[in-house]
């Protein structure tokens, strides 16, 4: 391990983001505990412990649904990009809320048996072959363990140490956790609840999250043609000043082409931080700026400005008859390429 560990690289945006997220969670829990008693059955009122457990449980599920919606929403509409900026802190917050829900359940349902509460949780119910009464807690435990692992590795230290592709692969485990959470709710709270509100909210969340992901994944990239060994990236006039386009060579990773000061530069479309889509970013202060977390790179050599050390692969390009032609063979990261002048 050669990376230096810094707990959180705080800045004003992150502090505001976290304060708003904490405020929303606090308001949700308070409002839930305030209005939920008026919805309960008069003959079977819920105790305070169960009410608290439900408040934190529903809050964790809503947060998780929101976290999973931010990525595809930002791909479909750039106005959601600010939510993506600090999504990892939202994930850690959701894990803390889910852990509070689990603690409340352990403290209430499993504290009065003859065995240790964890032993009670694991061996108290073995009705695995029926829907009503199924030990739904196992799904909740699995989801919480995955969320704890992801929260613990939600840091740039682990991102660099594991490399972005491996880290991304690990964090896809959140999809399995969400599946487990939906099973946990369906076989637990939905079986016992007489109020249809929980079923409606759960259904809307799962349909909403899945629809967003499917819609975002249908945005396919068109592969650019190769002419005499060069990629024809289309007319140079199609690129707006200080913005970029993305071209995808057949069978290879996409390339981002930017226009700045009337000149064109090409770099890989994958940000060195989290493989974010650089071509959807813009040029600020003479640097390509990733739309996900604001990482910046110089146009001519793909190097992050000092003191940062990230580098991108660059590509040779030229303008022929007003068309941008890009060499599909990537240069080693950080290689200087003279930007092409648009005639």
């Amino acid at each position, binding site marked *: 391990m050669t990376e230096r560990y810094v707990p959180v690289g705080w800045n004003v945006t992150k502090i505001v983001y976290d304060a708003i997220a904490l405020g929303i969670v606090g308001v949700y829990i308070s409002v839930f505990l305030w209005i939920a008693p008026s919805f309960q059955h008069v003959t079977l009122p819920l105790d305070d412990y169960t009410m608290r457990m439900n408040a934190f449980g529903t809050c964790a599920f809503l947060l998780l649904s929101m976290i999973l919606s931010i990525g595809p929403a930002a791909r479909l509409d750039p106005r959601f990009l600010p939510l993506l900026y600090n999504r990892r802190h939202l994930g850690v917050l959701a894990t803390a809320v889910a852990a509070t829900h689990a603690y409340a359940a352990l403290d209430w349902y499993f504290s009065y048996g003859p065995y240790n509460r964890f032993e009670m949780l694991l061996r108290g119910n073995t009705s695995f072959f029926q829907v009503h009464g199924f030990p739904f807690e196992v799904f909740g435990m699995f989801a919480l363990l995955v969320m704890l692992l992801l929260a613990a590795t939600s840091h740039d230290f682990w991102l660099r140490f594991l490399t972005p592709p491996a880290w991304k692969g690990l964090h896809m485990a959140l999809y399995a956790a969400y599946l487990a959470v*939906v099973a946990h709710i369906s076989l637990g709270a*939905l079986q016992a609840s007489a109020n249809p509100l929980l079923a409606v909210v*759960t259904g809307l969340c799962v349909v909403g999250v899945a629809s967003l*992901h499917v819609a975002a*994944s249908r945005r396919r990239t068109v592969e650019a043609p190769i002419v005499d060994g060069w990629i024809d990236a289309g007319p140079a006039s199609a690129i707006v000043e200080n913005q970029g386009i993305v071209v995808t060579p057949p069978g290879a990773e996409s390339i981002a082409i930017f226009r700045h000061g009337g000149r064109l530069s090409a770099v890989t479309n994958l940000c060195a931080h989290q493989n974010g889509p650089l071509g959807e970013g813009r040029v600020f202060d003479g640097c390509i700026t990733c739309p996900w977390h604001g990482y910046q790179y110089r146009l001519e050599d793909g190097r992050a400005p000092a003191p940062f050390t990230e580098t991108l692969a660059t590509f040779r390009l030229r303008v022929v008859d007003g068309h941008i032609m890009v060499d599909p063979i990537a240069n080693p990261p950080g290689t200087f390429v003279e930007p092409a002048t648009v005639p």
Partner: protein
Amino acid sequence: MRRGHRKTHRVIWLVLAGVLPAIVLLSLALRPVGPTEGPQIQLAPPK
């Protein structure tokens, strides 16, 4: 996002788009109908 991850994402969410609503709907359909509590026996007060 890399090509491989994009493809994996697409397949995972196509599967989940069917599985997640199915879990919710199935669990609601298989929910026991009627009262799940045993009838309360009201003992008459001693005469």
